[in-house]
């Protein structure tokens, strides 16, 4: 995994700071960057040094927690630290929702292929996948938050859990749809497998037979949730923006608007590294879930 981390951060770094052209274009709001900032960043990132050296020093800085400075003078790492808890809460909630509703719907649909429930799940997931998350966000905010008043339309200070339910639902929506479809397909397929026929022939009650199939079906689903984490974080930028959540996503959202290049880059690099860690975790988890991989 280390080579991938290195490769990815290198690419990010190169793209942002080291490609031909003015690396400071559009990074400081609507105006060109103040010369003092330029001088400081150039020194800090050694932009006059050869590329590799730049990258190495950059990584060195990263590892010591120096994620750079915004042109307004604040430390990016500080802003990130403040923003992290809200995003953690939101993401956790979203994943829980994704698992419960997604797998639940997928199981119901997968067991009754061709039924009304199955078609309902298929159609609704298709619709959800088709509507971009920001549209879902606005609609949810408007209809459920403002019109019906079931949820607060924006999230208050400190991001209390109750305020986060609606945003978490929105954030989870697309991933949930994919999880449902995947579970459905996997379950339907596994129910036709030979070992399920054996389980039935053993005289097991239906619930137990389904458990046999489910155990196999959920392995790819777990893997998917891990891989999907990156997309989830992308969605978090939009969701936190719409619901005014002061999390990492909201940080990125705001920094895009104010053209704060350093913050955007640092925050996204951070997210990417977390994503890689999540993938590593999923890899390990996979070995736990699937004994065939364990013993090779």
């Amino acid at each position, binding site marked *: 995994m280390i080579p991938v981390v290195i490769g990815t951060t290198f690419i990010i770094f190169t793209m942002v700071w080291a490609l031909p052209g003015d690396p400071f274009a559009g990074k400081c709001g609507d105006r060109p960057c103040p010369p003092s900032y330029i001088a400081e960043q150039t020194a800090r990132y050694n932009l006059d040094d050869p590329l590799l050296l730049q990258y190495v020093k950059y990584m060195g800085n990263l590892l010591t927690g120096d994620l750079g400075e915004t042109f307004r003078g604040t430390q990016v790492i500080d802003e990130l630290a403040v923003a992290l808890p809200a995003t953690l809460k939101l993401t956790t909630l979203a994943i829980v929702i994704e698992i419960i509703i997604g797998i639940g719907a997928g199981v119901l649909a997968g067991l009754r292929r061709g039924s009304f429930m199955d078609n309902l799940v298929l159609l609704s997931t298709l619709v959800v996948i088709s509507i971009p998350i920001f*549209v879902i966000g606005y609609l949810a905010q408007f209809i459920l938050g403002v019109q019906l008043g079931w949820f607060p339309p924006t999230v208050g200070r400190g991001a209390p859990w109750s305020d986060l339910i609606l945003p978490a639902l929105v954030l989870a929506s697309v991933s949930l749809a994919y999880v449902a479809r995947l579970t459905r397909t996997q379950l339907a397929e596994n129910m036709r497998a030979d070992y399920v026929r054996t389980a039935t022939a053993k005289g097991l009650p239906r619930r137990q037979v389904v458990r046999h199939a489910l155990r196999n079906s959920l392995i790819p689903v777990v893997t998917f949730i891990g891989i999907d984490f990156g997309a989830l974080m992308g969605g978090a930028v939009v969701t936190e923006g719409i619901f005014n959540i002061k999390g990492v996503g909201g940080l990125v959202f705001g920094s895009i608007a104010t053209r704060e290049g350093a913050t955007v880059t640092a925050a996204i690099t951070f997210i990417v590294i977390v994503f890689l860690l999540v993938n590593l975790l999923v890899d390990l988890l996979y070995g736990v879930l699937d004994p065939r991989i364990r013993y090779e």
Partner: protein
Amino acid sequence: MSEPTRLGGARDRDNVQREFARAPAEDITLPSPEGEPVPSEDVGKPRSLWQDAWDDLRHNKLFIIGSILVLILIVMAAFPQLFTSVDPRNCVLQNSRQPPSSEAWFGYDLQGCDVYARTIYGARASILVGIFTTASVMIIGGLIGIVAGFFGGWVDGIASRITDVFLALPLLLGSILILTAFPSSTDTPELVVIGKVVLALALLGWTQLARIMRSSVIQVKNQDYVSAARALGASSSRIIGRHVLPNSLAPVIVVAMISLGAYISAEATLSFLGIGLQPPVISWGIAINDAATYVRTSPHMLFFPAVFLSVTVFAFIMLGDAVRDALDPKLR
């Protein structure tokens, strides 16, 4: 989904990625190559997978609906004048936020522009981005996938490492990064802005297709007819061109079609965030962004572009779904 043979084999992250990565089909069955032998007395004309698929598709309601929608949208993108005679840039501030009426079916937006006209003209940006991104992704990803899958060995090793690195960048976040690095402003020419978005999405999207192509190629190259061609002295490029490529295409096409919808959605999201397409380019994402703050008072400004956007994505995904089901040999 063809259950990958897991016995003893390393858990192929490729397999999981290819099957379960987002936006494209969650499950792709790799169809077997041309024509299975028919074991019955009345051996009819040997049918290829594509013929069977087309027969199925012709009668598939979803496919028909999806195709009609997509066709309408493409025409809308190419010839918006057919749908409206109003100039989308002819904005009169006095009309700002007027609701739908007989003169303006969708009402007016914040600047007083005709929402209907802007919505029709907005199709072009989205469709262009979708098509160009998909084409680029197919070329880049396809090439890398074929090379990696066919030649194997260290070539595959390098290609897979590179793919891994790019895979670590999620689509949205990665494109935000790229577009932040190469910002556009209101004076950047329209084509350049669209080009940047296409480039950003393509740079991040090719990995998925590369994986699928690679798996597909690996499966095909182990078939007997490829060994036979090799034994007959066919060169690598000929084998690839005549045998491997045509038979590996099916899952790639399915994924490409479904991804098209995802790219349109991504472009809209980027525009919504403010780093995708910029005014004066007319795009659904920008329209929705502008309309968001007024959703309470003037919902029509957000509603119409949002519906068009969703229907577009829906149409492409539906198409891809239908094609995938038609190509799935398991459902025969």
